């Protein structure tokens, strides 16, 4: 999932300084799972924003709605009939959802309510960690299912580096060394000889280095 966290309320208030009526839009998918922008977070933020305005002697009308997803036309269309009633939209979806909203509703200011962080997993309740950077050419098949692109601080493809100590990364003692994890798992799988195989230089043009990416499936396109 895409992991995000709420922006500081001050920052959100700053966006809508001159607004009287806003639409606060949550998303039912990724950001609900990481407790950043689901229905509950929409309720809490609405309450907080109203209070922050009241404190200043102002009034803010906040309408709350949580869409199934904000990265699909179909769900975003659900607010078309009401969008013109608001001075602005604050979207609690990831950056993808915020942008799609802004593209679709060109005349309405759209502001982000969360900081979008990474693609990751729920390691335990309340703890999320990065697992993939969408490099466009997955090498998990060569690295025992552990991604050095997202989990090695130096993105080494043939690691570890000299800074790996007792299984931890030199940038942070709490952080597992991805290459230690890879070696441990290769051992467990009885495939340690694979560690000796050099992974060739990676073609980074499939990653962000090659510019914004796009997938087109002609068989599905209309």
């Amino acid at each position: 999932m895409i992991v995000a966290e709420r922006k500081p309320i001050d920052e959100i208030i700053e966006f809508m300084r001159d607004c009287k009526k806003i639409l606060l839009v949550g998303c039912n998918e990724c950001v609900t799972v990481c407790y950043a922008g689901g229905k509950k977070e929409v309720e809490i933020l609405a309450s907080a924003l109203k209070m922050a305005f009241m404190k200043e002697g102002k009034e803010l009308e906040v309408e709350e709605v949580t869409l199934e997803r904000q990265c699909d036309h179909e769900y975003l269309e659900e607010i078309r009939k009401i969008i013109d009633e608001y001075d602005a939209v604050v979207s609690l979806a990831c950056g993808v959802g915020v942008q799609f909203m802004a593209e679709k509703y060109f005349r309405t200011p759209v502001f982000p309510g969360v900081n979008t962080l990474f693609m990751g997993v729920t390691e335990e309740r309340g703890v999320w960690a990065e697992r993939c950077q969408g490099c466009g050419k997955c090498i998990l098949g060569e690295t025992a299912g552990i991604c050095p692109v997202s989990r090695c601080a130096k993105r080494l493809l043939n690691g570890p580096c000299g800074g790996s100590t007792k299984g931890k990364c030199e940038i942070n003692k709490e952080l597992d060394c991805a290459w230690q994890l890879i070696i441990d798992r290769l051992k467990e799988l009885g495939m340690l000889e694979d560690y000796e195989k050099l992974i060739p230089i990676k073609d980074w043009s499939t990653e962000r280095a090659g510019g914004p990416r796009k997938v087109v499936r002609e068989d599905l396109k209309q």
Partner: protein
Amino acid sequence: MRLTYPDSIRIIRLPCTGKVDVILMMEAFRKGADGVYVVGCLEGECHYLTGNLRAKKKVEYTKKLLDEIGVGGERLEMYNIAASDGPRFAEVAKEMHEKIKALGPSPIRGALQNKEAA
């Protein structure tokens, strides 16, 4: 046991403090409460095992939110009192009443009153 506690206090009953949600505490303030406190069973004695521990964390989170919007996290507290300990319940009620009195009315209540007067 006839114990009294300040009549400024409104009790909202819940089956367990585990049921206390962030939005519940926030809305109490938005509707004009000057202070809110959550009273749970003693730690380790929750009938649902961890209800009061979860409540404690939610109270902490809400305090930070209240600080962020300038209402003041110190207006929200959590207490753990044994179900049988009436005297302690009354004592805490007085303590909270005094504390909030010293802090004065919440800025939200002021805004609500101004609105009504207008």
